[in-house]
């Protein structure tokens, strides 16, 4: 199997920097989506009545995505591809090589193009998506080793604690989550959360699978006009507001419920999966300390109690 020694990873990345811009996401606060769907991106420019679309970036390597992020990337790729392709997302995505760095046990590639999977104290096993990536890796063969009968020691991931285990457990049954969240529309928990939630949108900005966006048009004093695509957050007040001031989701309660509704109901019916990978960013960074797992558990437990079979 193709492996890379832990001590060689940095040398490999240094070598890559000769040909690519290399971004190491391991210490990023914002999730990897920022490289494909930037927080703010100039997409069109108009000069002398001619519209020019933004050009594609130079080829780049995104290194260090976690298992959760790779899964999220896989889902985001699908969302941006169907039913029609998002031009600006793929303009960036097609220029990228994504390399994951994981400790979890896998039997196939969770997402991205290449994955380094830690298998013992010294070595990472190298997974790749297709022949194309295999060929590409050959250019850097001096950093890799083909090893037979390598000792595999199960790795205890540092990123996984009880919270993640429990959250992942819930995500295994997206159908139940969809039914429960849909059922919960009139549950008192949304009133409570509307009082706790600051409506700041941090959860959506940090979620690797929140991809709402808005246009923002600008005009310079020199007469240039441009259109910017910006991250939007469905919890913000103006998200569903139309010209003239009518707001289709005026109350924070409705907007907050809609966040859950998209992740677990609409998203599930659209893609067959919840739009959540259980990374925990929303709950770790919420200024009001709202815990998505706690919310889901409350809803699920009350939903189950409401089922006729449980009552009889």
């Amino acid at each position, binding site marked *: 199997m193709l492996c890379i020694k832990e001590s060689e990873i940095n040398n490999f990345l240094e070598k890559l920097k000769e040909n690519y811009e290399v971004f190491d996401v391991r210490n990023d606060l914002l999730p990897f989506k920022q490289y494909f769907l930037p927080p703010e991106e100039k997409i*069109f420019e108009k000069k002398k009545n001619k519209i020019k679309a933004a050009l594609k970036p130079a080829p780049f390597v995104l290194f260090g995505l976690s298992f959760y992020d790779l899964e999220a990337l896989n889902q985001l790729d699908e969302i941006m591809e169907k039913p029609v392709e998002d031009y600006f997302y793929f303009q960036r995505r097609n220029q990228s090589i994504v390399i994951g760095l994981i400790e979890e046990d896998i039997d196939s590639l969770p997402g991205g193009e290449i994955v380094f999977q830690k298998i013992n104290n010294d070595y990472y096993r190298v997974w790749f998506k297709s022949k194309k990536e295999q060929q590409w890796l050959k250019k850097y063969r001096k950093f890799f080793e083909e090893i037979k009968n390598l000792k595999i020691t199960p790795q205890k991931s540092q990123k996984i604690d009880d919270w993640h285990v429990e959250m992942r457990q819930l995500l295994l049954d997206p159908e139940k989550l969809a039914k429960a969240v849909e059922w919960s529309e009139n549950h008192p928990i949304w009133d409570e959360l509307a009082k706790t939630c600051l409506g700041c949108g941090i959860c959506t900005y940090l979620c690797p699978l929140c991809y709402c966006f808005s246009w923002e048009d600008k005009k310079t004093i020199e007469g240039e006009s441009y259109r910017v695509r910006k991250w939007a957050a469905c919890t913000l007040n103006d998200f569903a507001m139309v010209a003239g001031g009518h707001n289709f989701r005026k109350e924070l309660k409705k907007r907050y419920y809609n966040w859950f509704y998209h992740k677990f109901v609409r998203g599930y019916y659209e893609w067959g999966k919840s739009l959540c990978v259980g990374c925990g960013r929303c709950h770790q960074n919420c200024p009001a300390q709202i815990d998505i797992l706690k919310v889901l558990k409350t809803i699920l437990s009350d939903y189950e109690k409401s089922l006729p079979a449980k009552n009889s």
Partner: protein
Amino acid sequence: MRNLYLPKIVKIKAVEEQSPTVKLFRLENKFPKDKNGMVFIPGQFFLIGEMGYGEAPFGALSSPYEKKYLEFAIRKAGNVTNYLHSLQAGDTLEIRGPYGNGFPIDFMKEKDVVLVTGGCGIPPIASLIEYIIVHREHFGNVYLLYGAKTPDELLLKDRIERWKKSINVILTIDKPAFNWQGPVGFVSDLIKEIKINELDAVAAMCGPGPMMDALEKILKPLGISDRRIFVNMERKMQCGIGKCQHCTCGKNYVCLNGPVFTYDEIENAHD
């Protein structure tokens, strides 16, 4: 890869004032016809705007068979429309589309049709009427019920006069006015004027709040079932292709699954 966000730049052929706040724009058409000879399906919308000001969704009101131009009635309501109102014939603006599903025109054929609209909700209905007139022999009794706050706010008056030769038109206003002899409000009395076979009739609606009144007081008592009432919905729109999430409505995207929904689809949706 096609860039679906890239608008086409088109010339404004003519502008006509319709009411103190609404202007009618006739735009050069750069979109192809489909295999049925239509540039769009009545009820579909286009995103119109200008780089530097923004885009907003508008339902086309001209005949879908018209290949030379597209027409839109635009009410001054915000940044984009304020800018559009400053434009004149000969200027250019940007447009992309058509988006959404449109009215189920094939399903509506061979049936009686009740069209209900108010104020600036008339454009998609107007284009549907143009379609019906082209295929007049394939439709039963057709009624347009069109309401506005004041007589001045009834749009497309000259077209309405032309439509009257082919379909039945009932105009109403919200409050009595000295220059108005017609009915006031969407009142249940109007039912008496509508002769349809309720088992073989459809309704199409588009417009602001009072439309719900029309639904309760007219369409329901007429006996048209919820599944045959087609409502053209409005939501905030940005991308137009089902990505940005602004226009979602329960499980649906107004830009993809709509803007035309059956009434029973929207009645139970949570938002």
